[in-house]
């Protein structure tokens, strides 16, 4: 069989989209993990809530008759505000009391929170799928590529890169970002130089949740629907991506997402989509065997 380069590019583009989606959510996972050392299973639910808030806000604004661009701006702001609010509150309720508890307790608490939020949205809203407004317009300049990728694919790629850059900048150069890194590395010492660790952790959750909201809006617009369960499935994959890239590392989360997305896409394209998850997870196992701390993760120094 000859090599079909057009097909390869198409698969590459779809892998890129899938990977970027995973990466967008994985960034939030990795931030929280890097600083609190906690697998925040409820992160996927925050993403879902962000999408729901956007949906509700945009419906409200449409009824009020606002123009499209204003609607998108205000609804996005609302989505970020509430997602951040939920992230903040979840941390205060379910994780903060457990800071000094055995390591697995916050994990269980996180799973509980995830189940709770899913059902909360299901009961508060609906168990049905809802149509999500199309936020991303069709760009004319992308028309020649329409058969390979659409403008929503394009926007998702670009956003992922931008978000990664902004996040890296925050962590590297801002006061809060430095305090985050200090807190991550040595919580007691961070307190001793006067960092309010609670505030920093809250900030981490709020930033991570805001990211999740942005991801939620873009991804839901891309898929065209929302449902109370979308967070869980995307969350598991995103978490896998974060670990694959080296959990705690921001470029790692993006790289992990891309590798995972590509693996699934090529597995579907050249083999069978029935086994795409098997491919994705086998790849994960393989990579971790050779790089036990993920692709970009720092090998944990063994404490003696």
């Amino acid at each position: 069989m000859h090599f079909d380069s057009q097909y390869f590019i198409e698969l590459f583009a779809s892998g890129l989209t899938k990977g970027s989606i995973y990466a967008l959510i994985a960034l939030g996972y990795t931030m929280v993990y890097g600083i609190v050392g906690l697998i925040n299973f409820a992160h996927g639910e925050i993403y879902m809530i962000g999408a729901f808030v956007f949906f509700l806000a945009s419906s409200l604004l449409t009824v009020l008759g606002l123009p499209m661009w204003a609607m998108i701006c205000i609804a996005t702001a609302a989505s970020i505000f509430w997602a951040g609010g939920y992230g903040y509150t979840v941390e205060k309720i379910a994780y903060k009391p457990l800071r000094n508890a055995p390591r697995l307790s916050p994990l269980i608490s996180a799973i509980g929170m995830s189940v709770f939020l899913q059902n909360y949205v299901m009961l508060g809203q609906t168990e049905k799928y809802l149509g999500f407004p199309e936020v991303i317009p069709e760009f004319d300049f992308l028309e020649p590529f329409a058969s390979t990728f659409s403008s929503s694919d394009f926007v998702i790629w670009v956003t992922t890169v931008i978000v990664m850059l902004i996040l890296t900048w925050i962590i590297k150069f801002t006061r809060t970002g430095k305090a985050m890194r200090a807190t991550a590395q040595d919580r007691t010492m961070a307190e001793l130089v006067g960092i309010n660790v609670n505030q920093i952790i809250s900030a981490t959750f709020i930033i991570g949740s805001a990211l999740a909201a942005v991801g939620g809006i873009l991804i839901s617009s891309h898929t065209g629907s929302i449902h109370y369960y979308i967070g869980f499935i995307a969350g598991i994959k995103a978490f896998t991506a974060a670990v694959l890239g080296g959990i705690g590392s921001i470029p790692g989360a993006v790289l992990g997402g891309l590798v995972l997305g590509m693996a699934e896409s090529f597995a579907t394209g050249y083999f069978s989509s029935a086994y795409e998850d098997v491919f994705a997870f086998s790849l994960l196992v393989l990579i971790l065997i050779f790089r036990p701390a993920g692709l970009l993760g720092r090998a944990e120094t063994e404490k003696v």
Partner: protein
Amino acid sequence: MKFPLRNSAFFMAACCLFAFAPAAASAGDTIKIGVAGAHSGQLASYGLPTLKAVQIIAEQVNAKGGIHGKKIEVLSEDDLCKPEIAVNSAKKLISDGVDAVIGHTCSGPTSAVMPLYKEKSILVISPSATTPGLTKDKEYPNFFRTVAPDDAQAQVDVDFILDTLGAKKIALLDDKGDYGKSFIHFAKEQFEKDGRAKIVLEEGITQGAVDYSAIVQKIKRSQADVVLYGGYHPEASKIVTTMRKKRMKTYFVSDDGIRVQTFIDVAKKYAEGVYASSSKDTTSNPLAIKAIEEHKKKFGSEPGEFYLNAYTAMIVLVNAIDKADSTELSAVAKALRSEVVATPMGNVSFDEVGDATGIGYAVSKVVDGKFVEQK
């Protein structure tokens, strides 16, 4: 703030262990009808309408004094469409002493629990379990359904694809779920038997994935004229949207899992031109209009999926119990087979294996945001 709850968790555990739920009253003064299906979880939108239909009719019957003076008592059990939970639901209903069950919603759980009901000779009418084997295997004389089986539906779709669309290359897609897979399985058999078209692609997709562009590219590459999809609307709408965004004009044909308004709401303009098979449209039937009105009046909303099927199931059940003047399986089953009842789905009776006669399939097309039945 310290809570005095240190030991209360343990106390709760002890309570759970020894709190025996009150034993079910087994007095014969009511007719107990169990409703089992997905009442929560992802597939709740397929199961809850059934519960509502049963409640509406039970209320009406009770308001008229019941069946031969016996009131209907509705016991609902949630099975989340998961087989292992369905087994528990069924056991709960059995030990509560139900006389008949409307349910379960999904085929998998239904086949998991049928042996249990059979053991206790409990009549089961499912409004939505479509696996052909449930009736065709003649394993369960206590099983009836008010929905046509998958193979009948597959036949309708296959005929439509071959005769009306005149397609030559077929891509078969399923969601790896129980329902979608079995639908595609029968369609494949029928395509192969017919021989007019070639199957160029056969794939199973992962439910709930965030993006399906890879599989869509694969469909495009296979140059299929038609995609026949077995599964439900959430994935279908994503696939159709991706296909249309990639400017593919390939026909998209699917089963009644996507023939719901939500599909059109979600896929919006991209839903146009999609074909879906489903039970023949009977919404112009005066009984159906009445049934839908009742739902609107009681619950303030449009009924959901399988509402009319469940409504029909309950009507025929009440009628059969009335005619048989007993809840004993053989008598009720006999009445179900012999009586022809006017229902929202037309005049319905049951054949020897338990499939409803008079319930057939038709293919609809999305035109201007509505499903329009194709003649």
